[in-house]
């Protein structure tokens, strides 16, 4: 039995509190009116050195005009009326900026909440794959995976609440939820049959219920199997896992359209669901490896040896390349054909998010490939931990780059809101996962493959 050490618990609680305080500050610091935005900008340019002021102008002023360039050109064509409309346009610009700045703390919470939720969901998918594939190496890790999926229920409920709050117009994360925007946007109007708040929430409720019911049943059966006298429950779990995988692939795909792609309702991509999945599964495997190494180092996982770590590291390596393959496939197809309605997605990302956009490819591809290519390195905890931390940061950035450009545009920064949200959810995740690990013995007793798994070596 694992017992939660008080130090870990305290660290997690401190993380949560510091994160929560930071978030409260971030929400209070967000501007309420256009005047606040103007004040903020004025303050910024007074306080900062000249160089910074130029930079601020670049970030806050030049780019919005660039984005709204077509408005500007239209106005100029009208000639005489142009000057009168300049002021109106100016206000429009500040309003645009106001929405972006108001979105910042919300988007930060949303990204962090989704990131940890997706690790839990990906772990459940990996667990189901191991069950359905009748893997002989992984049963000693099943309870670790169970512990990580303990975050699924709270994580998915938080996601649901965030979506519901957006639906109540407390933020502007999803522009298609704003009736005023929809009224002027024919493209979104044509999608309202799918993109409307009640239907979105119903779908979300169905996915969340489905995942959690499968998780609950598989976990319950696995615990009962320990006490059982036959392997009947193992077969039940096998069928549940297979059923879950079918449900998961459909629901995960739709979830990625609903929760991520719809933030940018003018854009669509067919492989987006798999792309989100690849990010999910690689973060999940990485998290399993990191938690396993941690528990092993505390002496809780007697039968886990470096071959198990080697296997996990191979999965990290393989899925990292899988992620890169999908990232590149999506990027290259759109870049190559350069169709205006699709390519804006990448233009905003490359122009405004150059460093995170390309940085994440380095973190999610180049680092894992170089660090984990060598078979010996995959057995060294140090290398697995280093690669794991880089992969997790990289996939946080991946979600960041998926959501931020449509939510806050060029006003992004990894500052107090983002870091506090990340801290808060890290604390929550660690707390729930490690409390979940204390609830059952870390070694399943009578899984049919447990003996093979104990003696697994590669």
């Amino acid at each position: 039995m694992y017992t939660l050490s008080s130090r870990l618990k305290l660290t997690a609680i401190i993380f949560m509190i510091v994160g929560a305080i930071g978030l409260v500050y971030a929400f209070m610091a967000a501007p309420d009116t256009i005047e606040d935005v103007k004040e903020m900008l004025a303050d910024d340019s007074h306080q900062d050195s000249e160089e910074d002021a130029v930079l601020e102008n670049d970030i806050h002023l030049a780019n919005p005009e660039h984005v709204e360039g077509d408005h500007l050109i239209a106005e100029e064509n009208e000639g005489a009326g142009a000057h009168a409309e300049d002021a109106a346009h100016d206000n429009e610009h500040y309003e645009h900026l106001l929405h972006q700045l108001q979105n910042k703390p919300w988007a930060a919470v949303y990204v962090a909440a989704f990131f940890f939720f997706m690790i839990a969901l990906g772990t459940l998918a990996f667990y189901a794959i191991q069950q359905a594939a009748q893997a002989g190496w992984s049963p000693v890790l099943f309870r670790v995976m169970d512990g990580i999926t303990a975050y699924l229920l709270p994580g998915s409920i938080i996601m649901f609440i965030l979506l519901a709050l957006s639906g109540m117009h407390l933020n502007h994360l999803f522009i298609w939820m704003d009736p005023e925007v929809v009224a002027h946007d024919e493209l979104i109007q044509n999608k309202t049959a799918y993109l409307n708040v009640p239907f979105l929430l119903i779908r979300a409720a169905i996915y969340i219920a489905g995942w959690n019911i499968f998780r609950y049943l598989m976990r319950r059966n696995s615990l009962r199997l320990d006490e059982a006298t036959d392997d009947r429950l193992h077969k039940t779990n096998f069928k549940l896992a297979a059923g879950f995988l079918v449900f998961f692939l459909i629901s995960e795909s739709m979830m990625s359209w609903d929760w991520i792609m719809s933030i940018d309702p003018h854009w669509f991509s067919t492989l987006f669901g798999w792309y989100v999945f690849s990010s999910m599964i690689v973060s999940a495997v990485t998290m399993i490896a990191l938690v396993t190494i941690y528990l092993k180092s505390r002496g809780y996982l007697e039968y886990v040896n470096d071959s198990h770590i080697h296997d996990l590291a191979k999965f990290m390596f393989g899925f990292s390349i899988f992620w890169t393959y999908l990232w590149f496939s999506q990027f290259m197809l759109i870049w190559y054909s350069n169709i205006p309605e699709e390519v804006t997605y990448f233009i905003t990302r490359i122009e405004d998010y150059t460093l995170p956009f390309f940085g994440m490819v380095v973190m999610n591809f180049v680092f894992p490939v170089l660090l984990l290519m060598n078979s010996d390195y995959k057995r060294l905890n140090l290398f697995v931990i280093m690669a794991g931390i880089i992969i997790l940061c990289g996939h946080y950035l991946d979600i960041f780059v998926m959501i931020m450009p449509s939510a806050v545009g060029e006003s992004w920064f990894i500052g107090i809101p983002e870091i506090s949200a990340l801290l808060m959810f890290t604390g929550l995740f660690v707390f729930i996962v490690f409390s979940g690990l204390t609830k059952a013995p870390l070694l399943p007793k009578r899984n049919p493959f447990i003996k093979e798994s104990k003696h697994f070596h590669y």
Partner: protein
Amino acid sequence: MASKVIHAIYTDDDLLLQAVKQVRDARYNIAEIYTPFPVHGLDKAMGLESTRLAIASFIYGLIGFAVAIIMMNYMMIEDWPQDIGGKPSFSFIQNSPAFVPIIFELTVFFAAHLMVITFYMRSKLWPFKTAENPDVRTTDDHFLMEIDVSNHNVEELSKFLYNTGALEIKLIEN
């Protein structure tokens, strides 16, 4: 110089593995082992060095990577930078997504083929090569261990091998 070897034939791979251990413990020198199929753990039991083929393959991959980049850069950017369907051919980086499939394929091509050729050369395999099979049964269901006699006592050595479970023991002079 004429050298003597002993051929000991086993019929079971577990027995063979055990025998290898005993022979090595007794400090006899195993010259070669012939098996009909890969015996898991035999290389470790014999104390063979691990292969460096993977390292060679990695280097070949890097060569392929470089070849692809140099080739595409020369052809598409430097030699004749045409406007083909509006693709930006001003610099390599601007047009690089279009080159990635080729870079990838050439990397894999070089890594795979050169590694296979290295393998053939290092293990001296080629068409029309005369087979070096000491006993035809070793390709079917027998395992053969070849041990240097050098200055050991033949009598003693054969007795030792007999005790490790060898089915047949032959003294070969060549």
